[in-house]
């Protein structure tokens, strides 16, 4: 790592996160000025342009890629039109011990006087919560599901190679051409399309303005710079900004800067989930790398330094500050920009190139939370690349995660994408599959599968809210067979999925009508061609995901009931529900029987794994294919982020012996302590789920360092990954830390400030995790050689 990068990295990791009010200021000004006099999309674009014309710029000494989302590194803008924080929210953000965002009394006062009066009753969040039915509210309050769109915009979208071939002046021409082709006589939507296209054109001006202003700033800094080397850097930055984003990039350096300007505009326009991601970065920028190297203007070390400067930029942007349930869903600064390296090319060839190895080196040297870096492993991926990735993974900070290229492609093909689009696809956020550049694949919320069983066992009554919120399908005595109970569970699940999707239909409509994203639409195919916004179905593919959580807990719970109540007669269902209500206090014998004599998921035991398949199939079939508002369909994925902790908090104890309030199982991993037959058995169990019918699954495996030590350790890890992928597994990631280290880190957080662990689809500083999540990670079965 060069001194320059080391310094920038230090600033990035040591700067205190703050709130920046600038975006709120300029967006509010713009709304006051234009709302009502122009169309909604045009107003949104004008607001973005207004912000880009006036916002503070920032160039840190030494940096080579420029641009910050806020007024300085680690400064998070707010999005009051979406979610208007109260003064109390700001205080909580300021005072929170972890995931804080410092803000001043002066900022809070300004927010109270200028932002709140204008936005509090008209933010999207307000509209959404007003529009929801009572049963939706009850289910939401009970933690049956969460809602992604109440504080952040629809997202999980990823950049294609589009921005490297054209500049935004080219897009302005494309847009003008699309406007000129509008056929008002035959197309009743033509006027609407015109409004949207005109908004896109304004949004092109927004990013062009940002680039020009950075170019001017770099030039003026260069003029007063006394250090000759730095002067040359600044002149290079100025030159880059005179090319991108207005014109297509010509060099590797300009390509990276182009991406970064685009990233800033996408994430300033709205705060979409998972920020934005360059996706298949190695493939997109390799042509520039090759050309520059051949021309003698770039070498390997220079390219690595530029990549590392880009990495710093990602890490400088904390996720937008949230409150309440949404914070619990995702208690982290990480914004999930997830870069895919490797995989295959659009022609189906091995996609690993020299930049792929550079990205691995960059990942290894930087060890930063952001961006999330993963590798796509295909049958064609060379072992050299896989082993290098395993070497980094074995260092134990959770990156890279491993994704199965063939599975991703089959998932995309199964969801109706073309082969060409599927091969350009990958995963974003945690593990979500998408057709990069062509798809709006929106996560709508997590779904608490184990809680459905809890409600079924208590005849619809919810202990957490003290309300009857589910269907009344019978008392425990009424279920005289496992099949009866299981079918009641299925009916209950269908009921809540129905509530969830009904609510989401309204929410998607609200976004389509009131919160278009013309900038993101420019770079998402085929929004220009159709003249439709990304949030209104303009993308080529439009998917809505509901993320199932707790498959391990629900499987073990049903297995426990089937095995002990209906097969062995160890106790009755009523005795079990009584024990659950008592949190098994006074029922130690029953607890012991359940914990030691139940077939549990994660042991390659079909008695349990068949139940998992059945539950997954029902959930998957119930959700998949439901139409969404944007002309696409619902699909499922199986990932928790940190929501399995929250979902556990809203539940009593479970029939599998999970105690009240404790986390449910995460991803598709077995429940805590359930798997006792080692990693191959876990992988076999997990692979029995049909991953190809999902939009992504998440499997976490924790190893002690010893397991992965040496050349053989890495080879075995690689074999484990290849085997899982041959079984169609979607994703696997590794934590390589021993239990003792984690316990010590919990007791002495100050001594482990650097400790990063893989949480779910991302890594985080251990010290920034809640105690409950820390405990959960410590308790996850530690796979080892013993």
């Amino acid at each position: 790592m060069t001194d320059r990068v080391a310094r920038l990295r230090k600033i990035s990791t040591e700067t205190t996160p703050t709130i920046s009010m600038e975006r709120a200021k300029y967006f509010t000004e713009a709304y006051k000025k234009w709302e009502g006099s122009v169309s909604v999309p045009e107003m949104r674009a004008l607001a973005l342009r207004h912000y880009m014309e006036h916002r503070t710029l920032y160039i840190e000494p030494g940096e080579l890629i420029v641009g910050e989302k806020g007024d300085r590194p680690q400064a998070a803008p707010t999005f009051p039109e979406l979610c208007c924080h109260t003064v109390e929210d700001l205080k909580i953000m300021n005072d929170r011990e972890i995931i804080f965002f410092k803000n001043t009394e002066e900022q809070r006062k300004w927010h109270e006087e200028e932002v709140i009066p204008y936005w509090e009753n008209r933010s999207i969040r307000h509209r959404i919560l007003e529009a929801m039915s009572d049963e939706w509210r009850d289910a939401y309050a009970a933690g049956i599901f969460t809602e992604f769109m109440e504080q952040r915009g629809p997202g999980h979208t990823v950049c294609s190679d589009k921005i490297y071939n054209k500049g935004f002046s080219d897009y302005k021409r494309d847009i003008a051409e699309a406007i000129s082709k509008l056929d008002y006589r035959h197309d009743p939507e033509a006027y609407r399309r015109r409004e949207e296209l005109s908004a896109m054109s304004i949004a092109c001006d927004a990013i062009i303005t940002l680039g020009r202003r950075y170019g001017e700033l770099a030039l003026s800094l260069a003029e007063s710079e006394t250090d000759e080397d730095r002067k040359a850097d600044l002149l290079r930055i100025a030159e880059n900004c005179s090319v991108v984003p207005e014109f297509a990039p010509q060099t590797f350096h300009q390509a990276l800067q182009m991406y970064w300007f685009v990233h800033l505009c996408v994430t300033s326009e709205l705060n979409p989930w998972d920020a934005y991601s360059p996706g298949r970065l190695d493939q997109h920028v390799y042509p520039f790398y090759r050309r520059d190297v051949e021309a003698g203007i770039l070498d390997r070390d220079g390219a690595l330094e530029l990549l590392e400067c880009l990495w710093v930029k990602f890490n400088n942007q904390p996720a937008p500050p949230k409150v309440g349930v949404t914070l619990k869903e995702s208690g982290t600064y990480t914004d999930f920009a997830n870069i895919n390296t490797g995989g295959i090319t659009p022609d189906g060839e091995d996609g690993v190139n020299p930049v792929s190895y550079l990205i691995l080196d960059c990942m290894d040297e930087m060890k930063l939370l952001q961006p999330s870096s993963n590798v796509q492993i295909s049958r064609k991926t060379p072992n050299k690349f896989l082993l290098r990735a395993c070497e980094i993974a074995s260092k134990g900070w959770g990156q890279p995660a491993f994704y199965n290229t063939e599975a991703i492609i089959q998932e995309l093909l199964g969801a109706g994408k073309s082969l060409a689009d599927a091969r350009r696809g990958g995963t974003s956020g945690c593990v979500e599959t998408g057709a990069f550049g062509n798809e709006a694949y929106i996560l709508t919320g997590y779904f608490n599968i184990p809680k459905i069983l809890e409600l079924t066992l208590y005849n619809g009554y919810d202990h957490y809210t003290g309300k009857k919120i589910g269907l009344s399908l019978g008392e425990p005595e009424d279920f005289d067979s496992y099949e009866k109970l299981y079918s009641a569970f299925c009916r209950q699940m269908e009921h809540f999925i129905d509530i969830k999707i009904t609510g989401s239909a309204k929410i998607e409509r609200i976004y389509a009508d009131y919160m278009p994203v013309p900038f993101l639409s420019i770079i998402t195919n085929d929004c220009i061609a159709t003249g439709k916004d990304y949030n209104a179905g303009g993308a080529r593919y439009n998917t809505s995901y509901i993320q199932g959580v707790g498959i391990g807990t629900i499987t073990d719970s049903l297995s426990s009931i089937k095995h002990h109540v209906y097969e062995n007669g160890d106790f009755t269902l009523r005795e079990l529900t009584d024990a659950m209500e008592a949190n098994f206090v006074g029922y130690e014998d029953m607890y012991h029987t359940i914990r030691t004599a139940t077939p549990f998921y994660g042991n390659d035991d079909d008695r349990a794994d068949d139940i998992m398949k059945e539950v997954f199939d029902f959930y998957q079939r119930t959700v998949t294919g439901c139409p969404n508002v944007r002309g696409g369909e619902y699909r499922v994925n199986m990932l928790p982020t940190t929501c399995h902790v929250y979902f556990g908090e809203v539940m009593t104890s479970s029939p599998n012996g999970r105690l009240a309030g404790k986390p449910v199982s995460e991803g598709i991993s077995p429940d805590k302590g359930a798997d006792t037959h080692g990693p191959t058995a876990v992988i076999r169990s997990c692979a029995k789920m049909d991953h190809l019918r999902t939009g992504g699954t998440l499997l976490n495996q924790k190893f002690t360092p010893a397991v992965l030590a040496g050349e053989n350790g890495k080879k075995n890890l690689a074999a484990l990954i290849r085997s899982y992928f041959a079984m169609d597994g979607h994703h696997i990631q590794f934590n390589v830390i021993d239990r003792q280290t984690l316990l010590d880190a919990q007791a002495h957080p100050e001594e482990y400030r650097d400790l990063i662990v893989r949480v779910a689809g991302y890594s985080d500083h251990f010290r920034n995790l809640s105690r409950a999540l820390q405990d959960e990670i410590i308790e996850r079965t530690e796979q080892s050689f013993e």
Partner: protein
Amino acid sequence: MKKTAEIFNIQRFSVHDGDGIRTTVFFSGCPLRCLWCHNPEGMMFARRLLYHSEKCVGCGRCVSACPAGANSMAPDGRAVTDRARCTSCGKCVPMCLAEARAVAGTARTVDEIVRICVSDRMFYEESGGGVTLSGGEVMAQDTDFLLSLLRALDGEGISVNIDTCGHVPYEKLYAVMPYVDTFLYDIKSADDEKHTRFTGVGNALILENLRRLSGDGAKIYIRVPVIAPGDEDTGFDGANFTDGDIESLTRVLGGIKYSRVCLLPYHNTGEYKCVSLGMKPRRFSAPTKDDLERIKNTLARAGVTPVVTGG
């Protein structure tokens, strides 16, 4: 042929018993009595109860569960098991709230063993692994049972390693050879007198079998446990890697064709197992890194290569 064999463990994702990712099948019963044995629960051919008394929570359920009346509560509130009465029937195992009890040994048929081993075929193929038959002493088992198992695994296309002490009639080794990919062949000591003292038997048969296996073209990994001195009353008056020991080993390996020599440093898992089996624990110590380096270097100078630490 016997229908079942006593198996005390089948460990999946085993990566220390040969190449790649393997499943190791541990057979009960061994003709040797190595002082440092790390799997003492596998020494006997019969099942045996393991009881980790330090985990006992004093629930007393084992007392009423025992048909032989072997369990009682001690004044300290913990259960004690009278080994003279205990038949290792295992009835107390599921009753124990502290999960402090287990029985080492389950009768398994060939089909059962094969079914478990086949589960991880994908991992073997990706890693160049397979199944390792170990123990106890796998070669001390019923030959027909063993051949039946080996033929079944061979039929599934699974590569098999045999981990053996070699103290068996050569005919047995010769009989399994066609189905075995690699023999993991233990040399506890190249010195006959020491071997007798450490393991209860001399090494003449073992070394003779090694020479014959080598002559018959078997693929062999030599495995040498490296033990440093321990408690005085172990009767183990020194490490098994003195200069003399290494010299003898070099001599013994002189005419042998082997693919590698694996040094297996002592670890103390056997010690707490002994306690739980009601056996006298023996404590030794692990060799230092320097010890291992010295052994490797000495062997290398004498032309014994490659030497690796572990598996």
